[in-house]
């Protein structure tokens, strides 16, 4: 075996020994240029790759100028990928007068490149050498496909990480369960995806407690972002004993953005005055709203349309509220959860679960979620599930 053949064989062995995964187009270009020079037996090997990160050039054993790189890439792009073109016109630019063979390649819909073997040491290109250039181009394309896959995985992981941060943020904005002398209030949110388009919130003062639940149309990050605006609007409503007044203020504030984004928001609110033992409830298109009072459990129909819809507004419904009476504001994700055979949990089961419930607000909220989970069984959770329970503490009466 002569020196040239030995050299070529060693080049093939080195190529095979190279790790299959390179992480960057630059690495493909740099290592590729050396492989080409050795495999094709030329004085110069060039690999040029253009992609989302910009243009990279590998040239071995000496560098070539950026202008020559661009020219070679542009001309090669006019030729069919994978086929050898005679780029000897490039001789002057790469300082040689003995021949260039180049092959264009593309990968993953985002990379394109060219591999060029310049100035054969033996004086001319044989069919074998041209074939080696073609095969190398295929290999570089395969390496770039793997790099593209890796880039996509990183991008996805970044998105998931962002959404998980958003989810933590959402959870930290929810009020913690409180049980003071007059009121015991707790809530649970279970997003269907990582972030929820549902929310509950409340404000407790000595004179009154105001609690609310809202549901933005749609699911996921977009709905969750809208919910941030809903929460802010609720937080800065003026304190009022009338939940209708509170809802009307929130609705007016949200109207322009709901109109622009073609979304609707359902919302229900309850105000409780411990001193008078009175509860008022109003709903803008939101269900279910359940009041358990003096042993009687019933569902309260909304009187108003959701925010973002032209139509009648909500109205207050009043109840005496004392002892261990409770009001449950829940999202329709509980009622609509289906079991394996497609049977919805439904309002009747929810009313029954509320009627049977006992214990603190947190325990009641938990028991409702557990009842929905038992019903759902192995079926995946279909929608955000949120429940808020407000109980008049026995201490209040």
């Amino acid at each position, binding site marked *: 075996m002569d020196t040239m053949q030995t050299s070529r064989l060693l080049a093939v062995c080195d190529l095979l020994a190279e790790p299959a995964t390179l992480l960057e187009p630059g690495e493909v270009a740099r290592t590729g240029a050396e492989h080409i020079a050795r495999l094709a037996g030329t004085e110069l090997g060039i690999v040029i790759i253009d992609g989302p990160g910009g243009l990279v050039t590998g040239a071995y054993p000496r560098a070539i100028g950026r202008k020559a790189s661009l020219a070679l890439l542009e001309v090669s792009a006019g030729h069919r990928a994978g086929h050898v073109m005679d780029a000897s016109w490039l001789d002057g630019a790469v300082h040689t007068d003995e021949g260039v063979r180049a092959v264009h390649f593309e990968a993953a819909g985002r990379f394109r490149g060219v591999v060029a073997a310049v100035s054969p040491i033996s004086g001319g290109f044989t069919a074998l050498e041209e074939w080696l250039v073609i095969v190398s181009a295929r290999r570089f394309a395969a390496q770039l496909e793997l790099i593209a896959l890796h880039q996509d995985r990183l991008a996805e992981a970044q998105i998931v990480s962002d959404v998980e941060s958003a989810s933590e943020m959402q959870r930290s904005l929810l009020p913690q369960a409180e049980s003071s002398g007059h009121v015991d209030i707790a809530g649970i949110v279970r997003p269907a995806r990582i972030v929820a388009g549902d929310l509950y919130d409340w404000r407790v003062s000595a004179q009154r407690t105001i609690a609310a639940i809202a549901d933005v149309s749609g*699911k996921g990050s977009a709905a969750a972002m809208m919910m941030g605006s809903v929460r802010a609007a609720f937080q800065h409503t003026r304190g009022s004993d009338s939940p209708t007044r509170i809802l009307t203020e929130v609705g007016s504030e949200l109207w322009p953005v709901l*109109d622009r984004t*073609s979304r609707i928001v*359902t919302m229900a609110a309850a105000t409780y005055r411990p001193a008078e033992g009175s509860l008022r409830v109003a709903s803008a298109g939101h269900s279910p709203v359940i009041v358990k009072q003096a042993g009687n459990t019933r569902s309260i*129909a909304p009187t108003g349309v959701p925010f*973002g*819809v*032209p*139509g009648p507004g909500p109205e207050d419904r009043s109840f005496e509220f004392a002892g261990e009476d409770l009001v449950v504001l829940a999202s329709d994700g509980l009622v609509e959860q289906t079991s394996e055979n497609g049977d919805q949990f439904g309002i009747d089961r929810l009313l029954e679960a509320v009627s049977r419930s006992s214990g603190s607000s947190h325990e009641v909220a938990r028991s409702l979620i557990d009842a929905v989970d038992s019903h759902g069984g192995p079926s995946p959770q279909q929608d955000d599930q949120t429940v808020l329970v407000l109980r008049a503490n026995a201490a209040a009466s």
Partner: protein
Amino acid sequence: MTITTSKEANLITGRMVGRLDAHTVVRFVTEVADAVGPDHPNVALHMAHVEFIDSSALAALVMTLKRSLQHGGDVMLVAVSDPVRLILELTRLDEVFPRFASLAEARAAIAAVA
């Protein structure tokens, strides 16, 4: 979800079969909501075979309604199935969309207003 639409004088009719939810609502928007305009301000939607409707779909119906109202028309729901009727009642949207038992009745209502 399958949706068949047709255009008549000043009215778009749509017949929908299946689930109207976040996945299928895009087709509803391009074929019905986007077609509402000064020449076709009214929409009549046949919903006897819509087995499920979610909040994204309700929001799309509301958007269609607002466009219709802007052009002096209305969105009418025809032969609404039980699941859809229930959701409309639970959200109070039953007060917002006129409902009819048949497309013929919906057409008659439009003619009466004109």
